[in-house]
């Protein structure tokens, strides 16, 4: 029985993987074509302020060095084969390998995103549960109002408000930058890092709460309307015990999968939050690459963010497939 399950799981993973592979190849190709057709001249972007010092011959040399004088398909194949070998190219603005920059930035972003992800998940879940258990009371109305308002709040505006209140008025937190200015990278303490992490993480969590809370609320209301809860109530179970015995497991799974499936939105939120708080993460790098025409970095980030979203979706699918006992039982028949 167990072996069969594992076999099915393998096929499931294989199919998922194949689908993701086709999507990934398509995304690489499309984004390469898009970037190639951009009016921003990569040589111009590379030269930047030294425009007057670089003559036409030197421009041609740079184009030849980068293979920019070859046809688009050849360029794509060159880029694609380098990509498969793990070489994402060299960033124009940082003058370092893209893979290295993404790795370094990802660690920063990961700390931020994990903090925000866990916080928003837990708080959102608790809010949803409280809201559903106390349906139609003032606290339910308050939570609902909060979630609907937050759902239409621009992330970057909330970040600005946090800056105004906590950094400018109260002076509790520094304004921007992932580490203090004028301090060597080696001297940055963990306390410094945490201090610079708090505001962006809180901003992201406040926004992220709404989705989970509303979803959990709806699910739990459905569960509470079921016959087995009615029976439990008839036996005298109430309040927390009732939720613990009959509600929790039913609503926790959808909430967790929802959180995993929301990786894309998390990434989008991180782009904005990092931009406002000048937090040196992937999001800020994406914006920089877009603004200053750093083609290799932009392509690398698009591919990386796709991987990130895939990972989230895959985990969400897996949880439904493996953890939920109901789907397993139905398969054993």
């Amino acid at each position: 029985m167990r072996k069969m399950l594992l076999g099915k799981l393998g096929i499931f993973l294989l199919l998922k993987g194949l689908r993701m592979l086709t999507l990934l190849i398509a995304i690489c190709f499309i984004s390469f074509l898009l970037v190639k057709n951009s009016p921003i001249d990569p040589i111009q972007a590379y030269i930047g302020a030294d425009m007057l010092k670089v003559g036409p011959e030197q421009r041609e040399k740079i184009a030849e060095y980068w293979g920019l004088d070859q046809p688009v398909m050849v360029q794509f194949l060159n880029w694609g084969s380098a990509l498969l070998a793990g070489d994402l190219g060299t960033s124009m603005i940082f003058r370092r390998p893209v893979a290295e920059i993404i790795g370094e930035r990802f660690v920063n972003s990961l700390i931020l995103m994990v903090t925000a992800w866990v916080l928003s998940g837990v708080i959102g879940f608790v809010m949803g549960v409280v809201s559903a258990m106390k349906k139609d009371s003032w606290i339910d109305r308050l939570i609902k109002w909060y979630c609907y308002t937050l759902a239409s709040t621009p992330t970057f505006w909330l970040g600005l408000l946090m800056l105004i209140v906590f950094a400018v008025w109260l002076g509790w937190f520094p304004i921007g930058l992932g580490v203090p200015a004028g301090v060597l990278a080696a001297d940055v303490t963990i306390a410094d890092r945490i201090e610079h992490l708090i505001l962006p993480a809180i901003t992201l969590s406040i926004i992220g709460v709404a989705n989970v809370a509303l979803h959990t609320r709806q699910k739990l209301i459905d569960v509470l309307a079921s016959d087995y809860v009615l029976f439990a109530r008839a036996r005298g179970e109430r309040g927390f015990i009732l939720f613990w015995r009959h509600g929790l497991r039913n609503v926790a799974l959808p909430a967790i999968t929802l959180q995993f499936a929301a990786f894309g939105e998390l990434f989008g939120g991180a782009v904005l939050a990092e931009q406002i708080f000048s937090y040196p993460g992937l999001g800020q790098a994406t914006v920089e690459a877009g603004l200053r025409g750093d083609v290799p970095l932009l392509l690398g980030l698009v591919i990386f963010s796709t991987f990130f979203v895939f990972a989230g979706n895959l985990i969400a699918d897996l949880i439904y497939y493996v953890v939920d006992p109901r789907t397993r039982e139905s398969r054993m028949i």
Partner: protein
Amino acid sequence: MIQNLHVRKKEENRFSLNRRQRKLVTSIVAAIVLLGVVVVGALLDEERIATNLIARNLAPSFDHLFGTDWLGRDMFARTIMGLSLSVKVGLIGAIGSTSIALILGMAAATMGRVADRLISWLIDLFLSVPHLVTLILIAFTLGGGFKGIVIGLVLTHWPSLARVIRAEVMQIRSAEYVQISKQLGKSKGWIAVHHILPHLTPQILIGFMLMFPHVILHESAVTFIGLGLSPHEPAIGIILSESMKYLSAGMWWLAFYPGLCLLMIVQTFDRIGENLRLLLDPSKSND
């Protein structure tokens, strides 16, 4: 009948409406507010946001409701013009996206298995890159500006609505009256226009209204980053990104009011969309 029995009570509650009527009234009021913002924004001329160096950096007062910026421009006028622009961009983006969703959703459900596979693969393709990253990529490709942002918005917001429409068409397609119509020899196009499209109208309308807030928020986010509308346009994203430089000087009103207004506009759209859903969707009308 019961109301007639309580004549006096009826007298007291002459203006009381039932839920449905209340929803309708709030929707109409909200729509009028939105229309007002657009019209006022279009009517305000550039003079209102002309540079006025005498009245620089003023905090909110009765003369300047939202204060003034470092060039002495009235922030209230700038905000209203920005909102008007947001609604316009949102309208174009939402109409374009809804059309794509409608065409692809219909095609997926009616044009056979290959088309269905292809379109659901396409939906997955657009959902597998974070929205904001796609927008940045497209804006970069088209060199930013109005064109870049609008095309980006149109291309990124259709997938979820396309899924809804596809599911809906699948359901209608297998309904008995459609089968009978087919037996009677009606063509596919005739069935699509006369049987399927009328059923889709409420779904499309609701999807369209609920897409609006997303489009507006994404537009202002991309503009805020600096890849959207040009800095000369009075867009909310531009106002907020400019305000960042002056926040540490304590000029909170530069960011606070424009953002709040954007929030209210977005929420108004959301409210209209939800109300429409309650009014048009029979399965929800008793909620």
